[in-house]
């Protein structure tokens, strides 16, 4: 696979899967205002994934949706951190905080890329991520003395950027994610 496509897929898959996980909170977040705010973050992540897939799709001669849905689970390049289903708020926020820190560094590198398209898209994504970081910091300030949150940070920190293979969680997520799409032949419009 081409170098650039591989790089793009890594971030795209991270953002897609994280966005998918974050969207699980829509409707059941701790309170209504936060529900609305966190849902925007989830949508932005999926939106970033879409833009990245579109760029990769040009390189690979395919379409964004096909990259997002039609590869088997073991071909996704996402980190183990984003795959986990985290139905506890402290773990979700811990992941959010850790991911945003790591992602900020990654975006800085990409913004400096010689590839104008990659650098340009990275800059756009980075400008949206400002609000994600503010949101993450805001929650971290509030929760940093809570034992369960501190534990969650310790539990999840080792998984940041770790790409040693996928857990069963990704397969389960992928099956649900593709259950409607794959109920009809490839190429069917939805």
């Amino acid at each position, binding site marked *: 696979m081409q170098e650039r496509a591989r790089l793009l897929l890594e971030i795209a898959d991270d953002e897609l899967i994280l966005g998918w996980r974050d969207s699980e909170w829509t409707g059941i977040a701790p*309170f209504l*205002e*936060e529900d*609305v*705010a966190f849902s*925007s973050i989830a949508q932005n992540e999926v939106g970033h994934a879409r833009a990245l897939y579109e760029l990769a799709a040009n390189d690979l001669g395919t379409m964004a949706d096909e990259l997002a849905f039609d590869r088997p689970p073991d071909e996704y390049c996402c980190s183990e951190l984003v795959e986990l289903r985290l139905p506890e708020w402290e773990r979700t926020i811990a992941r959010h905080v850790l991911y945003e820190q790591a992602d900020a560094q990654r975006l800085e590198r990409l913004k400096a890329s010689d590839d104008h398209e990659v650098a340009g898209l990275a800059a756009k994504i980075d400008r949206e991520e400002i*609000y994600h970081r*503010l*949101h993450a910091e*805001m929650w971290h*300030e509030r929760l940093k003395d809570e034992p369960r949150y501190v534990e969650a940070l310790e539990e999840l920190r080792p998984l940041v950027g770790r790409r040693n293979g996928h857990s069963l969680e990704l397969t389960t997520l992928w099956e649900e994610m593709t259950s409607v799409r794959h109920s009809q032949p490839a190429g069917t419009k939805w």
Partner: protein
Amino acid sequence: MIYEVFRQERKGQAFQHAGSVEATDERFAEAYAREQYGRRGESVALWVVARDSVMRIEEFVDELNRNYHRVDGYPLKEKLKEARARAGKAAAGDR
């Protein structure tokens, strides 16, 4: 705490009361106001203020009908009619 949100739809327009959000401090209030009143690009600016900081004024006194400084204190129809009539007679008188 309740924060009132005022939004400006386009530059140059008045800020209008849009609603309120519940938040524990200004940081959260900012995040939530931004989301509830701006995620769709429907506002170019927001003013967010704690409800307790808003002064409410609802009683106004005008016991003696102070219409000297309002448009309704100047019913000119009759005077104008009289003045036009007088000018008309004067013009007729000149001929």
